[in-house]
């Protein structure tokens, strides 16, 4: 982690020459100006709590990052020393939750097929425009997982989209692992599944060999670990019987947990049911294989399926398995009828709802980066307003195991609050302010890049100006860096 921080610091120093960095810095300095622990009172003409009826002329009190009181202005006692944010013209809403994305990573995919030992933290770029966009569209919690082009991916993490270092951003480190059943580039479905099954076979063989060696030669595992320079202290020094519901390796209790190779440890966590898995299916035919692998290795209960829209055809299987899903991409599955040649559209959330499957929508979509828009479109096509809003707040919060923390505005939950110019699903509504854990981190009035998108205005010396590199008025150095960045994005 120390090396990560050092590398980040180096990267930031390089960015300092870029006007682009100015905006990011101004955002996060606003964040550090109001350290967690401060009190904040949010006022709104209407609070959509997502936990009961709306509150008119309401107040939210946040202390030490958490909501301590919420209710009508007349009933809630406001701390005398707390700054007040908002006004009667605004609507308060809980921050949107991105159930899963690879955005914000320097590059989303990894060459290694099976790499559960890698940590996304080394790959997240805190100054990526993506995180700015999150605030602009009201996303306050992001689950970052490696891209879908993998077999067993590295360890993901949950972040808040604000901060200059990964340490500032992290909400849950080393959270979850993505596993893909749809073939990685260059693989067929057969080799993909073979590599996937082999990964768990390898784990089993490794553990069995380790136990055998330990039995042959008492203290082997501990000596090996010490030889590799690893500390075996406290809990790490303890052996435990293997957990989980699928297969077991007898005698694992002989091995100190800290002595298990860190390349294998995350997979063991998966088999023991201690690590959430995001299982990617690129087509309906992947779904039965995905569920079988999850069952064979005991992680079905910790599985969330990440599905391509075409997977609606396997919705009966998904419903039977009882796993939640994240819809990856467009809500409308469009295909050509092979007989008539005509286009047929299927509204996927409608099918999921009908089958009783819990689902989250995601904003990885060709035309928009925003969860509000996804939810609104779903209402137009037949979801109720509550179902649609839940699919971008409460359900993803539950999928991330953060149900008691985020997804609605209730006493005791984190103070992640949006102040909107109107109803969350109206097409003319803008995110005016964003509060994350009691700190104001976004103010639309100061968002120069949004002003650029909306009005084409480019205030001099800003990120917006540097981004539009076909315009004059920038240094060659900045231009070169801008071009390099563009090329990186092209590679994705």
């Amino acid at each position: 982690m120390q090396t990560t921080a050092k590398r980040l610091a180096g990267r930031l120093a390089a960015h300092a020459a870029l006007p682009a960095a100015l905006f990011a810095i101004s955002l996060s300095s606003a964040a550090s100006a109001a350290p967690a622990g401060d009190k904040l009172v949010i006022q709104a003409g209407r609070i959509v709590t997502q936990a009961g009826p709306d509150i008119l002329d309401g107040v939210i009190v946040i202390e030490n990052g958490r909501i301590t009181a919420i209710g009508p202005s007349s009933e809630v006692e406001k701390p005398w020393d707390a700054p007040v944010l908002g006004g009667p013209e605004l609507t308060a809403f809980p921050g949107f939750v991105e159930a899963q994305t690879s955005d914000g990573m320097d590059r989303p995919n990894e060459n290694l097929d099976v790499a559960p030992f890698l940590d996304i933290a080394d790959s997240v770029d805190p100054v990526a425009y993506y995180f700015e966009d999150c605030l602009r569209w009201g996303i306050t919690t992001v689950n970052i997982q490696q891209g879908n082009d993998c077999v067993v991916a590295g360890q993901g993490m949950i972040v808040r989209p604000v901060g200059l270092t990964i340490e500032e951003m992290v909400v849950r480190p080393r959270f979850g692992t993505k596993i893909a059943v749809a073939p990685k580039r260059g693989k067929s479905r057969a080799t993909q599944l073979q590599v996937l099954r082999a990964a768990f076979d390898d784990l089993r063989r490794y553990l069995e060999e380790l136990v055998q060696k330990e039995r042959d030669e008492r203290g082997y595992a501990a000596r090996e670990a010490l030889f590799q320079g690893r500390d075996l202290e406290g809990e790490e020094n303890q052996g435990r019987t293997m957990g989980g519901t699928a297969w077991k390796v007898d005698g694992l209790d002989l091995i100190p947990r800290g002595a298990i190779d860190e390349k294998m440890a995350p997979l063991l966590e998966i088999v023991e049911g201690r690590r959430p898995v995001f299982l990617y299916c690129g087509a309906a035919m992947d779904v039965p294989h995905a569920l079988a692998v999850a069952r064979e290795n005991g992680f079905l209960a910790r599985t969330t399926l990440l599905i391509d829209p075409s997977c609606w055809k396997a919705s009966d299987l998904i419903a039977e398995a009882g796993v939640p899903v994240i819809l990856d991409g467009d809500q409308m599955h469009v295909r050509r009828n092979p007989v008539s040649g005509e286009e047929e559209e299927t509204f996927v959330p409608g099918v999921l709802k009908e089958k009783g499957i819990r689902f989250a929508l995601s904003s990885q979509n060709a035309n928009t980066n925003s969860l509000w828009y996804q939810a609104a479109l779903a209402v137009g096509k037949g979801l109720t307003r509550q179902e649609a809003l839940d699919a971008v707040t409460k359900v993803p919060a539950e999928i991330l195991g953060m149900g008691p923390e985020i997804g609605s505005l209730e006493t005791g939950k984190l103070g992640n609050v949006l102040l909107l110019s109107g109803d969350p699903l109206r097409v003319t509504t803008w995110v005016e302010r964003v509060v994350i854990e009691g700190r104001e981190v976004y103010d639309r009035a100061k968002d120069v890049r949004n002003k650029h998108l909306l009005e084409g205005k480019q205030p001099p010396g800003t990120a917006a100006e540097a981004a539009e590199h076909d315009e004059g008025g920038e240094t060659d150095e900045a231009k070169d860096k801008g071009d390099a960045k563009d090329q990186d994005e092209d590679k994705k």
Partner: protein
Amino acid sequence: MIRRLPTGLALGALAVLGASAAAQDAWVIRAETIYTAAGDPIAGGHVRVEKGKIASVGSGPGSGANVLEAAAVTPGMIDLSARIGTTELSVEQSTETAAELSVVEAIDFFSFRWDRELRSGVTAVLVSPYDNDVIGGLAAVVKTGGPPTLEARLVKEAAALRAAIGSQPSAGNRTPRGAPPSSFYFRRPTTRMGVEWVLRKAYWDAIQAAERGEADTDPHVRARHEVLRRTIRGELPVIVDAWATQDIRTAIFLKEEFQIPRLIVDGAAEAWREPELLARAGLGVVLPPHVFTGRTREEAFFAWDCAATVEELGLPLALSAHGARDFGARLDRQAGFAMRGGLPFAAALASVTIHPARMVGVDDRLGSLEVGKDADVLLWNGTPFEATSAVIGVLLNGELVLDPRAAAGQ
């Protein structure tokens, strides 16, 4: 869509009905709000449709047997740049200035994309030749549904003359090397300068020919000249593909040099940059689909308030979805995005109905809900253009082609 059986549809799929499934020639549509695009909205009103035309519009429930109900009703939408029906294969190679050619000869009415437009509420489009010629030919207004024949679908044959400036007409053209410059294989022009020159030369030739008299001219060339002169006389609008400021400027200077009264810029993403120039020229503006990054073709930056800016100048404004596959980016959504950028609702409605109809001269039949006009009517499940609303029913020429009662059961 005639070939499809009304049964056996995919689960939850929105399907356009077979014509035979709803062969009624009279309907009464009741709605909480009727947006006519010809005056104020009518609360609690009706639209009565008979024999393919609108028979009455007004407040109250109306009378009649076949009743449909919806939250809101609007005219069918019109897309002047749906980019449908023609491909690069229909680019004429023998000339760069094919003004006398008509696109109607090249429209593929069997493409599945017509159905996509129809079920998303676009009932008429302007079909233009593909933009690889500087002057592509005559564009036509057609309906997006009905029997797949020209006779059944054509609204207006020579509705506008299509031209293109910018990089598209010269894209892929090579300068001759090691072969005679007259070779068929070297298309010209090869630069923006060349494109502009070809366009100006075409107009110059047409004007010169008129002064000289055209008795001896080849009949094809005479026809080409006559089309160009019709645009100068204002009998025919010119619709020019121009995205970036430099290309919009070229269009404006062309308009002023040859005094072309009705000039429409299509794809005009940077129309917001020089509003004074735009207002001076009195252009019609067709905007491309909104993108969340603002980046469009030709490195043009499409600011989100572009539609609102053009509207404030009092210029004719039309929106377009360019035939988007994604249901979150079609024409109804484009109107919503324009509202997000500051366009008032009434103007957003006009920009997908009556404005485009007027711009290509089909407002006698299309573009608003008025007695005697074609019965192209949309039924919505909420306020039109809100992201939470969708088109749930479509009548085309008075025929129910998307049944709102099916959507309700979804």
